[in-house]
């Protein structure tokens, strides 16, 4: 009983409860049919949101005003870069992944360069950067119809006993991210900056370097996500990252990370990502139209943030 109360006090538990409720509602609707398949599909899709969500979480934790709006453009460009470098050739998978990572890291570094050199709010810096990245992607990826190498496509869809391998790897990655956040100097510095940037600076935290690393990390994760998405959906696409702007911010907020910075929550990102994916699955199962689906998704996000509420502010 005491342990249950302890569990309920965790900010991340609510996102998992939400995901569970949505799943139960859906299988109640289908009469128990397809419940397992739904979890497999949800895990495969949630992976992509979790990867960018963790990047966004580190950025948001840096404090008010910190947010990476360039993720969708970043994902789009990295997906094109990965597909071009791999060129459908199994031998080039690792090189392609590295190229996508490098592309994302370069974007993240450029973001921080703009923030630092122009002394502008990160929202504006990542926004201007995303304008330019988008154009590069449109120009570079025009008519790009390269399929991912078969080995890579199989890898992104590979399952063991109904559990996607990519999801297992992502769980390992998020455990690493949680350790980095709570137990390593880098993560503690991010939290310290988010709580009080001046105090962190006075305490000897190299604020500039930590912020640079965080934006680069977010960029790198965006790049990796782009490559994986292109593998999973069998091809790159300019619009492949579009939904991840809202999704990356939403999972961070729903997952119990403070939008005011200084307080992050890694497990919540998983719960929130599963919640969002299962929610879409549920609405699709109910057979609602595209308009109603968008409407309900928006209302639920506004509703959840209103219920969670209470802290300021992402700017």
């Amino acid at each position: 009983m005491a342990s249950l109360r302890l569990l309920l006090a965790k900010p991340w538990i609510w996102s998992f409860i939400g995901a569970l409720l949505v799943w139960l509602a859906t299988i109640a609707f289908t009469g128990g049919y397809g419940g397992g398949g739904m979890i497999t599909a949800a895990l495969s899709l949630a992976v992509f949101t979790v990867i960018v969500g963790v990047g966004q979480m580190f950025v948001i934790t840096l404090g008010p005003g910190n947010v990476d709006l360039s993720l969708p453009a970043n994902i789009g460009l990295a997906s094109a870069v990965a597909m071009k470098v791999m060129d459908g050739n199994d031998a080039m998978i690792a090189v392609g992944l590295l190229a996508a990572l490098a592309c994302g890291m370069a974007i993240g570094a450029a973001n921080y360069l703009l923030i630092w050199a122009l002394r502008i709010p990160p929202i504006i810096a990542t926004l201007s950067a995303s304008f330019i990245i988008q154009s590069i992607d449109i120009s570079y990826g025009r008519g790009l119809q390269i399929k991912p190498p078969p080995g890579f496509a199989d890898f992104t869809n590979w399952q063991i006993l109904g559990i996607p391998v990519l999801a297992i790897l992502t769980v390992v990655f998020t455990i690493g991210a949680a350790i980095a956040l709570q137990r390593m100097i880098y993560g503690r510095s991010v939290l310290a900056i988010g709580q009080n940037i001046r105090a962190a600076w006075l305490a000897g935290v190299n604020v500039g370097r930590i912020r640079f690393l965080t934006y680069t990390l977010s960029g790198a994760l965006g790049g990796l996500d782009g490559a994986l998405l292109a593998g999973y959906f069998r091809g790159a696409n300019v619009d492949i990252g579009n939904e991840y702007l809202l999704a990356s911010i939403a999972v961070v907020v729903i997952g119990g990370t403070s939008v005011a910075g200084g307080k992050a929550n890694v497990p919540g990102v998983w719960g929130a990502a599963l919640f969002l994916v299962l929610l879409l699955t549920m609405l699709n199962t109910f057979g609602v139209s595209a308009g109603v689906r968008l409407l309900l998704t928006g209302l639920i996000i506004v509703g959840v943030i209103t219920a969670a509420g209470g802290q300021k502010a992402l700017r």
Partner: protein
Amino acid sequence: MTAASVESGLRGAAERDKLARARMLRGLLPALSLVLVLLAIAWLNPRAISYFGFSLMLNLAIPIALATIAQMFVIAGNELDLSIGTFVGFVGCVTATWLKDAPLIGVLILLGSIGVYALLGALIHLRNLPSIVVTLGMSFVWQGLAILVLPKPGGKAPDWLLSLMAFKPPLIPFPIIAALLIAAVVHFGLMRTSYGVILRGSGGNAAALERAGWSLLRTKIVLFALAGLFGVLSGMALIGITTSADANIGNGYTLLAIAGVILGGGEFVGGRVSPIGAVLGALTLALAASPLLTFMHIPPDWQVAANGAILIIVLAARVLISRRER
């Protein structure tokens, strides 16, 4: 008076002079960027600088300017609206359907949507929510509603709106007159009236305003309602020009409007915004994104990048000027 104090007084005056110059330069930056873009266009294609040329090039500038003003009101209160683009699209869909077929219901829907904006302002203030997340969620709501109102591109603008937007005044093209009018009205309302000062103050120093007895809830509601009002005007103007609607028609406006406010000298925090600058910024973006690139023979792929590049260049110029201010 001793010589030393006279000297320090003189030095103070010189400092003040330098500061005032830098501040003026900063204030002129939006106008300067517009003039530069106009000069480039004139140099590349002199024939574009004509009554007809301006009417054509600035065709879409009116809805962009209105959406930018909408975003400016939100930014004045230290918030950010990531849903203005899909809201403009929703208004467009209502304009091309209900407002033409059943004007009374159409007007009610549009008034209701302004009410929703006002409620959002109240919600954000009362629950202390991050506006960026709330409006990101709302962008889905507006988009969903737009698709429900108009599942397929189509509809038709009401005739009175079409004839209004096709208005051809003598000598000066309509978009320029409209831009001047919008800038003048909003400038007067926000910069010259006493409640305008209160509205900007809610972004500048909320605590002080509250101590002085002003309701912050009310300022936030008013700012968001004004954003909704100008969003409605923007959507209607857009449909008056394009004649028919599409649920995705306004999507690009969200980022364009933020860029316009910042280009126009607005700042993200502190209630420092400029209506005239915002309109100038919107005109600059409207001109630079497509006519200028076309005249430079740059493929339209780079249209979005041009917006980003202009934003970065102007912000860099601002940093250089601010450095002199110190």
